């Protein structure tokens, strides 16, 4: 079942690559604008031994990791506070509903004005954009915690803070984790976008800009490919962690995965 699914996915990707190569070979597309698939893949492979690219990738990865860590540290407590205190949530809600739909990329120019340090800029943009899914998921998950589960602990004389940390937080954890996974994907987009817009010394976005100005479409798309692949891998890793940590949740909801 699992194997068949993976196999089908691989077949889909291979099919797409082959089709793109065939279209490229027919000369329908000018390969000055879009290089042949084989050229892009060769470029992507070359990047693996390109010291400059590797340094850029490391810089982006560091900004991503730091940004995501800070996002979790800020948004989980914020979500818990808002979820646990409905009056505060109702007061803040309109602000959230106003800010959330603003495309995060649109705040990058503002961040450029505020932050002189490129790492700070990227981290700040990530925290702003990636917090939403975690905060929202945490609020809704807390709202859905089984009242009987809370009442049980309350009947043993535990106070509201204990009930929040020992019942509400663990109950909500699977949903918070999903929020973190969505945030991780958002953070990849934001880190590269910030680098493209704000420039700087190091980062995949910087590498892409330089490759484009040097007219190396193959390296530019190769770098983009690695960024995308990183997004897929981090998502897969987080799904694996969730499955392991929240087996009780899957069993209970009867999720067949």
């Amino acid at each position: 079942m699992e194997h068949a699914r993976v196999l089908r996915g691989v077949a889909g990707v291979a099919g797409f690559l082959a089709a793109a190569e065939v279209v490229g070979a027919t000369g329908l597309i000018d390969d000055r604008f879009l290089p042949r698939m084989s050229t892009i893949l060769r470029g992507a492979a070359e990047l693996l031994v390109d010291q400059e690219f590797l340094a850029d990738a490391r810089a982006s990865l560091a900004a991503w990791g730091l940004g995501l860590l800070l996002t979790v540290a800020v948004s989980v407590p914020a979500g818990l506070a808002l979820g646990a205190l409905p009056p505060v949530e109702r007061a803040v809600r309109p602000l959230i509903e106003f800010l959330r739909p603003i495309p995060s990329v649109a705040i990058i120019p503002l961040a450029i004005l505020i932050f002189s340090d490129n790492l700070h800029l990227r981290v700040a943009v990530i925290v702003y954009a990636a917090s939403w899914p975690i905060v929202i998921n945490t609020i809704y998950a807390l709202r859905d915690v089984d009242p009987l589960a809370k009442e049980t602990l309350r009947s043993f004389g535990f106070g509201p803070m204990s009930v929040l940390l020992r019942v509400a937080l663990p109950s909500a954890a699977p949903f918070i984790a999903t929020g973190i996974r969505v945030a991780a994907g958002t953070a990849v987009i934001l880190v590269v976008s910030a680098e493209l817009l704000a420039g700087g010394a190091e980062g995949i976005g910087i590498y892409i800009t330089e490759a484009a100005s040097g007219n190396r479409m193959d390296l530019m798309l190769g770098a983009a490919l690695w960024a995308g692949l990183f997004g897929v891998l981090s998502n897969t890793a987080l799904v694996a962690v969730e499955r392991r940590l929240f087996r009780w949740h899957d069993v209970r909801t009867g999720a067949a995965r």
Partner: protein
Amino acid sequence: MLEITDLVHSYGSHRVLDGVSIRAAEGELVCVVGPSGCGKSTLLRSVAGLIRPTGGRVLIGGQPVDRIPDNLAVVFQDYSRSLYPWMTAANNVALPLRRRGLDRRRRREAATAALDQVGLADAADKYPWEMSGGMQQRVSIARALAYRPSLLLMDEPFGSVDAQTREDLEDLVLRVCAHHGMTTLLITHDIDESVYVGDRVVVLTRSPARVAADLPVGLGDSRDQIATRQLDAFVRLRAEVGRLVRGGSSTSTVLEKH
């Protein structure tokens, strides 16, 4: 030990409890039986301090219940919601013991002992969702026992298990309550069960609930699922309680005894 006096509770203008008075002596197992939706759970929640009743008074060991008492444990009907699925059986049982100021090792010991008492010594490291319904309710009972409450409240504790398991759990509760000398208030809609398990049966009327009758069971301490249920005294009392629950009047001389 437990004194409930003129308890009144209304949700908005809807009156649920209309002056309910129940007494339970130290070590007594009192069953409260009544038609579905008559306010039994509201009664239990008021005693547990989970809701503040509109009127009346609850004393546990002479102390008024004005917040959640710390010498009381509740076993709810819905074990699957009341046990924590992210914790093993032993950790579920050990969790409330934090309130007792026990260290990790002592909590674990107490949990193991309580699980042993309910016949789940081997299941300490299992998760609730790996267990049958009956086993899960045993874990809930073990959790209440480990807490060593002086008052045990049970809200339809056998309402969600099959008949065979139900009988086993009834006997388990009889055994452990007698063993610990715990005062127990057990709420049920099952007439047969109230007579089999109780030292006394308090019958509530249809909503708003009042005490229709307070009947001593008088079947002795040792009970047997087959033999006890065949006794004339059991059959008569069951019929009596049945009539009262259906809203009829008592034919016995024991009426409204406070």
